């Protein structure tokens, strides 16, 4: 080992022995992993979106053709708009339905039983994701649980068509699939509320409605925001649900990305779609967080 190399080796070892060095070394391993397998691949996707597919080869001359196609072809615009529409609606439905549940567990359940209730909420989600989605197809289908029962009971004669293989079916199914992810963050934020604040409000003569609107809801807002983001972001890119219960009019952006990468063999176009979708999701999330912050600030002043 050369003298210089030895010196470098020694200083590296000394650095690892400092507090900073230890922290960096520990964090470095997962960081490098994420850099290699996430940051680098995402960069590759980004680069790919500016190239083009030439039969089996990839042509690496810079082009905006993919983006031009993505943003001008109606089919992609429709899919993108539908994905965003589905996610927004699913987020709204899921979080609205979840809030009373989280509130109920946090405020009406004895502390020793809370964990049991959380467990109760999550049990249905210990089955395969695919199977849960598929079972909704069974529930909502022509001879499904709902239509079958209603027909036999003589309440309806024809199967209800508004829940069959369409947008609505996708929303119902996804709202179910993401329920615990909305309940848990809201529950956590409700749990953090200092109960003496509520007693103080009652003491000062606030009624239950006022107390809820002025204290509970604003304090639970961080949890609600987290729940919205946790539900919104992944559902935009959901692949399975549209394929299983969406029918031809329920397909979403992930399905077309998959088609470009596999069957249509046009990865650059798929990459441009993926990048566009990511950009829109990021923008929508940022906007949401920004609006929320603004609301909080105007509320507190």
């Amino acid at each position, binding site marked *: 080992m050369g003298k210089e190399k030895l010196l470098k080796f020694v200083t590296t070892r000394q650095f690892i022995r400092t507090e900073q060095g230890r922290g960096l070394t520990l964090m470095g391993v997962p960081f490098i992993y994420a850099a290699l397998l996430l940051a680098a691949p995402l960069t590759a996707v980004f680069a790919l979106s500016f190239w083009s597919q030439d039969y089996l080869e990839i042509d690496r001359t810079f082009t905006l053709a993919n983006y031009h196609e993505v943003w001008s072809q109606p089919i992609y615009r429709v899919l993108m708009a539908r994905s965003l529409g589905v996610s927004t609606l699913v987020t709204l439905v899921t979080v609205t339905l979840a809030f009373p*549940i989280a509130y109920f567990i946090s405020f009406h359940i004895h502390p020793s039983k809370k964990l049991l209730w959380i467990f109760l909420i999550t049990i249905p989600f210990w*089955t395969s994701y695919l199977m849960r989605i598929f079972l909704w197809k069974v529930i909502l289908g022509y001879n499904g649980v709902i239509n079958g029962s209603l027909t036999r009971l003589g309440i309806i004669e024809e199967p209800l068509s508004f829940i069959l293989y369409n947008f609505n079916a996708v929303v119902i199914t996804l709202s179910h699939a993401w329920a615990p992810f909305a309940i848990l963050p809201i529950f956590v934020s409700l749990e953090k509320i200092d109960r003496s604040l509520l007693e103080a409000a009652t003491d000062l003569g606030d009624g239950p409605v006022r107390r809820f609107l002025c204290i509970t809801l604003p304090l639970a807002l961080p949890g609600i925001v987290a729940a919205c983001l946790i539900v919104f972001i992944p559902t935009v890119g959901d692949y399975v649900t549209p394929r299983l219960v969406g029918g031809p009019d329920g397909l979403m952006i992930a399905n077309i990305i998959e088609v470009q990468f596999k069957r249509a063999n046009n990865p650059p176009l798929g990459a441009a779609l993926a990048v566009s979708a990511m950009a829109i*999701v990021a923008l929508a999330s940022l906007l949401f967080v920004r609006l929320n912050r603004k609301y909080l600030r105007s509320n507190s002043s």
Partner: protein
Amino acid sequence: MKWTLKYGLWAYVSLYLIFLYMPALLLPIFALNDSRIVAFPLQGLTWRWFALLWETEALHDALRNSLIIASITAFMSTIFGLMAARASSRYAFPMRKGMAALVMIPLVLPEIIVGVSLLVVVMQFGFDLSLWTIILGHVLICTPFCVVVMSTAFNNFDRSLEEAAFDLGATRGATFRWVSLPLVLPGVIASLLISFTISLDEFIIAFFLAGVDVTLPVYIWGLLRFPARLPSVMALGTFLLAASLLLLISAEVIRRYGARRAGTSSNGHLF
């Protein structure tokens, strides 16, 4: 007014629970239903779909692949989670927040993006798709969950305990082995369980990155297109639900045993 509110809430919660449990309750019903068609009306009781599971070789392969992937993923992502959580809760160093943020990004990234980007890299470098390519993707998406779980464990951890051990002559390694690790063990177990379950159930990344060997969800995906095989899929689902419930309950028992041993009061009990 107060009473109607309370009963209204209870009624709502009951309806919601029916909504939540509807699919899960249908699983065992159709798994035991003596009909090739997964629909009502029910035809009678049978165990043959479970027997069929026992005989299907491809299913066993897929299950084995999934278990291998989930085990390795759980192990790797828990170690990564441990390192990242430890680094950010214990040490101050430049770029700490930025580095942690990159590790956490998969949490807010649609899985299809992760799958696609890894596929692009694998294709570019001409690697073969295998169980390992799936594991790489799964570790990536499981690590953030492990970081969250391990951070909670480390934040509740009293740092002077480590200093005490070090002061009593233990090396850094021995301090970790005899003091830190036993005290965050419940977190480690939770992290292993969570990452194992996520990996076992993950479909999209496995769908994109699977080569010849497929995972259980990818195998099930294939079955969903053949109506004749659906009852056995139901039987498989029932089996998986029962197995994961058993795993979860035993994990909780271990956790409570651990909590009693460590003397930390756990907030709330499952049973």
